[in-house]
C-alpha cells in the first residue's frame, strides 16, 4: 500500500527544480573546484579539461550526494552528469560530460550497475564513439545483498563507486593511459564489496511522500541508494549485532586473504548523525579485525546517500601497495580533500 501522505519539510522552491537549484548552490559554495554548466546539466572541474589527461566521468540519479557531483575536482572526476532524483541522467548529459572531459586521451565512464544508468551510458558511449572519442566503461557492482544470477540485472553499484572514482581519478591524474586507468578501476571493482542497512525511508521532492513506510522497531537489510526497500525486513537490533552482520555479509563474499590490509568506508545514508556513524564504525572496526583483516585506511561520513534516509552502508576494499598509493594521492573535491 502507498504510505499515507505526510507533510514534506524540505528546503525547496519548486520541487521540480530541486536538482538544478542544488547544483547552483554547489557551484556557489566551491567556485575554485567545480563549475555548473546549466545548459548541459553537468558539473565540470573548474580548472579542466586538463590537456593530455584521460578524462574521468561518472553520473547517476541525484539524491545520493555527494556522489557524484561532490567528487568533481583535481584527483577525482573531470565531469559528472546528475539525473533527476533517483533517475539516471540522459545520454545528452553524459555525452556533454564526455566532451567536456576529453582532450584526446580518451574518457573513462564509471557506471553504477543500475538498469537505467547502464543503458543511458551505453547510448552516450555510442554517440561519443561516433564523434571520435575513445571511451572505456567500467561498471561497478559491489552490492552483496543482491544475488548475481545469470539473466538478472545483477548487483547494484554502491559505495565501491566512490573508491573507484578516487582511485581511477588518481591514476588519470598521474598521466596513465586510458587502458591503464580502466584496468585499475576494474581491479577495484573486483576487490570491493558493500552492504547497507536502512532505518527509515526517504522522501523524493517531486513525489512529496516517503517511498515506503517502516513499522516501529523494524529495519531494512540490504538496501540500495534510492530509498527503496531492501532484501529483507527484520526487527531492530543493537549496533554490535548489526556490525557483525554487515561484516559477515561483506567478508563472506569478498573472501580477502588472511591479514589483508583493507580500506573500510562507512557511509551514512544522509539522515544518520555523525555520532551514530562513529558508534557503528567502532563496532565495525573491531569486527573487521576479529575477522582477520586490517583496516589501514578508513572513511566515515556521508559519501553516497539516499536523500535523508537513516541508515548506513559498509564498503570494504582489499588493498595492495598500488591501490594504497592511489588512494593516498592528492585530491581536492567538495566532499573529499587531502594532500592539496
Amino acid at each position: 500500500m502507498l504510505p499515507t501522505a505526510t507533510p514534506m519539510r524540505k528546503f525547496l522552491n519548486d520541487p521540480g527544480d530541486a536538482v538544478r537549484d542544488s547544483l547552483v548552490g554547489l557551484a556557489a559554495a566551491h567556485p575554485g573546484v567545480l563549475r555548473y554548466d546549466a545548459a548541459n546539466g553537468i558539473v565540470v572541474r573548474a580548472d579542466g579539461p586538463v590537456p593530455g589527461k584521460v578524462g574521468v566521468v561518472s553520473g547517476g540519479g541525484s539524491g545520493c550526494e555527494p556522489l557524484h557531483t561532490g567528487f568533481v575536482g583535481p584527483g577525482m572526476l573531470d565531469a559528472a552528469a546528475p539525473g533527476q532524483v533517483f533517475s539516471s541522467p540522459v545520454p545528452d548529459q553524459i555525452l556533454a560530460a564526455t566532451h567536456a572531459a576529453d582532450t584526446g586521451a580518451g574518457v573513462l565512464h564509471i557506471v553504477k550497475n543500475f538498469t537505467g544508468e547502464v543503458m543511458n551510458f551505453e547510448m552516450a558511449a555510442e554517440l561519443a564513439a561516433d564523434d571520435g572519442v575513445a571511451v572505456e566503461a567500467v561498471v561497478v557492482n559491489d552490492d552483496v545483498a543482491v544475488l548475481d544470477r545469470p539473466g538478472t540485472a545483477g548487483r547494484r553499484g554502491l559505495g565501491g563507486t566512490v573508491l573507484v572514482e578516487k582511485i581511477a581519478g588518481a591514476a588519470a591524474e598521474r598521466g596513465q593511459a586510458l587502458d591503464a586507468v580502466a584496468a585499475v578501476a576494474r581491479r577495484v571493482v573486483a576487490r570491493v564489496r558493500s552492504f547497507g542497512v536502512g532505518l527509515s525511508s526517504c522522501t523524493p521532492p517531486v513525489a512529496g511522500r516517503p517511498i515506503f513506510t517502516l513499522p516501529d522497531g523494524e529495519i531494512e537489510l540490504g538496501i540500495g541508494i534510492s530509498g527503496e526497500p531492501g532484501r529483507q525486513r527484520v526487527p531492530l537490533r543493537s549496533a554490535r549485532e548489526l556490525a557483525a552482520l554487515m561484516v559477515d555479509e561483506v567478508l563472506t563474499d569478498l573472501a580477502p586473504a588472511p591479514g589483508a590490509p583493507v580500506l573500510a568506508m562507512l557511509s551514512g545514508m544522509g539522515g544518520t548523525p555523525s555520532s551514530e556513524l562513529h558508534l557503528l564504525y567502532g563496532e565495525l572496526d573491531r569486527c573487521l579485525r576479529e575477522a582477520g583483516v586490517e583496516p589501514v585506511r578508513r572513511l566515515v561520513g556521508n559519501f553516497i546517500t539516499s536523500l535523508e534516509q537513516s541508515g548506513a552502508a559498509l564498503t570494504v576494499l582489499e588493498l595492495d601497495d598500488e591501490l594504497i598509493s592511489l588512494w593516498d594521492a592528492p585530491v581536492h573535491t567538495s566532499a573529499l580533500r587531502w594532500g592539496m
Partner: protein
Amino acid sequence: MTDTIDSPALRAWLHEFARRVAENSDHLTALDSEIGDADHGSNMDRGMAAAAAAIDSDPGAEPGQLLKLVGRTLVSTVGGAAGPLYGTLFLRMAAAAGDAGPLDAAGFAKALHAGLDGVMVRGRAEVGDKTMVDALAPAVDALEGELAAGAALDVALAAATTAAAAGRDATADRVARKGRASYLGERSIGHQDPGSASATLLVEAAAATLGTAADGQA
C-alpha cells in the same frame, strides 16, 4: 482505407498516449513506489508532454519523422530506464516506418514489432522478466495474429489491448528479473510492474485512436 495510418492518425495516437500517461501519472508512480523508486509516472509524464510539444512544433512531419521525433525527445527528457527503453521503441518504429508516408495496418504492426525487438535488446529483457515487454509482446502477437486472420485494425487493436492488459496483470505473480524491482527478489511478487502498466496505456491509446471504430473520435 480507414485502416490507413497517416500523420494525423499517428499524432492522435501519440497525444492520446500523452493524455493517458498524464491522467495515470500518480497511479504509475504509486506502482513504482512499491517495487521501484517512485518516479515512473512523473518521468513518463515529463517525457510525453515534451514529445507532444515536439510533434506539435513540426506540423509537416511524415509518420517516420514523427516517430523519430518522439523517440529522440523521450531519450533526451525521461532518463532512468524508461527513457532509453521507450526512446528505443519509437526510434525502431521510425526506422521500420521509413520515409514511405502513411502506414497500412500491417506496416504499423511490423513497426511496433520492430520497436518491441529494440526494447528487448536494449533492456536485455525476455517475456516473463516482469517488465514492459510482458505487456507489449502479447499485444504485438495479438495484433499480428488478428491482422493475419483478416481482422480490421480496430478489431486487432482491441485484441491487442486485451492481451496487453492480461500481460500487465500477470506481472503481479512474477519475480522481477530486470530493473530496480529485481533487487527485491521474492518481495517483488504481488506487485504489478509499472512499465507493463504504461506500455498497456500505449496500446489502449492506439485502440482508441487508430482504425475504423476510432474514426468518430480521431
